[in-house]
């Protein structure tokens, strides 16, 4: 098991997402990936992996206002399978 530290996290309003995918390359630690599932618009939406820094880049580039960004008071550790 590997430990990944998240210094931040997100609330994602997936129903607003139109699947433009601009957030994916915008994320510096690359912890966003588009889902396989679709929302009610028929669009894929971003999923969050451990490692978020709470930088807010996703929020800055999102045209549909899908992201709420948080920074943890104390970093949260996630155990992930290697």
């Amino acid at each position, binding site marked *: 098991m590997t430990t990944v530290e998240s210094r931040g*996290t997100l609330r*994602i309003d997936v129903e607003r997402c139109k699947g433009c995918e601009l957030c994916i390359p915008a994320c510096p630690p690359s912890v966003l*990936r588009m889902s396989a599932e679709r929302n009610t618009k028929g669009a894929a939406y971003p999923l969050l*992996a451990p490692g978020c820094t709470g930088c807010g880049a996703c929020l800055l580039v999102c045209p549909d*206002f899908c992201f709420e960004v*948080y920074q*943890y*008071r104390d970093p949260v550790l996630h155990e*992930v399978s290697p």
Partner: protein
Amino acid sequence: MSQDSLFVLNTDGPPGEAANQVGALEPALLLDGEHDLCPGCGEPVAIRLLLEVIEELACAQRSIGVVGIGCYTAFTGLIDVDLIQALHGRAPSVATGAKRMRPDSLLFTLQGDGDMVSEGLQEVIHTAARGESVTCVLLNNGVFGETGGHMTATTALGQRTKNSLEGRDAAYHGHPIPIAELLVPLGGAAYVARGSVADARGVVRTKNLLRRAFEVQLAGQGFSFVEILTMCPTGWFVPTAEGPGYLDEVLGAGQRLGELKGAADPAV
């Protein structure tokens, strides 16, 4: 390593652990509701910055926006600022009359490139030359988005639009007009800047340009102007994820970003 097992974080609501919210879902000056602009459109990204700056300057109750006609016009239904709708290209003259009668207001125009630089070229130039105390904001994606993606006066050489499918060709279509550079020599233009929303860094810098432009107006220093390069993957015939790259490489090729005139600190 299983890819799926990495992506297990719950993002349905705020975190259970102690955390500070550092980014709100929407700007305070946005009304409830969703806009109908295309996936990957740069305009909402730019408009968000405008609304955040107005809020941060505590100017919501003295702001008047004069809106042109383009894709962004439909967005105005969600903007919680007093607005006046103008005709295509004609926001600067309306802004002039409004500001002269309400000199204490924070007066801005919101126009696309087809609106401001094709139809309304003389209006923005005269308004700048006269040094009217307004801020003109240009959303530049190099296309007439609302009517289907045709060439405008700012379409870049080589840029694909519905009537320049092989890319704009100087010999056949003529050259684009760099409106920001045209305004720089005018005595009444106190602040001229260009930003881009193609990436997070550009977004942050563009917000600073907008803030500075409004500060110039509030200080009574004259006309201020911010051009914002925005993505239009629909008009450019590219997948949404390629919009920023196309913006950097084609629309924005050779375009100087930053403060072209009126920088507080010339080193910026």
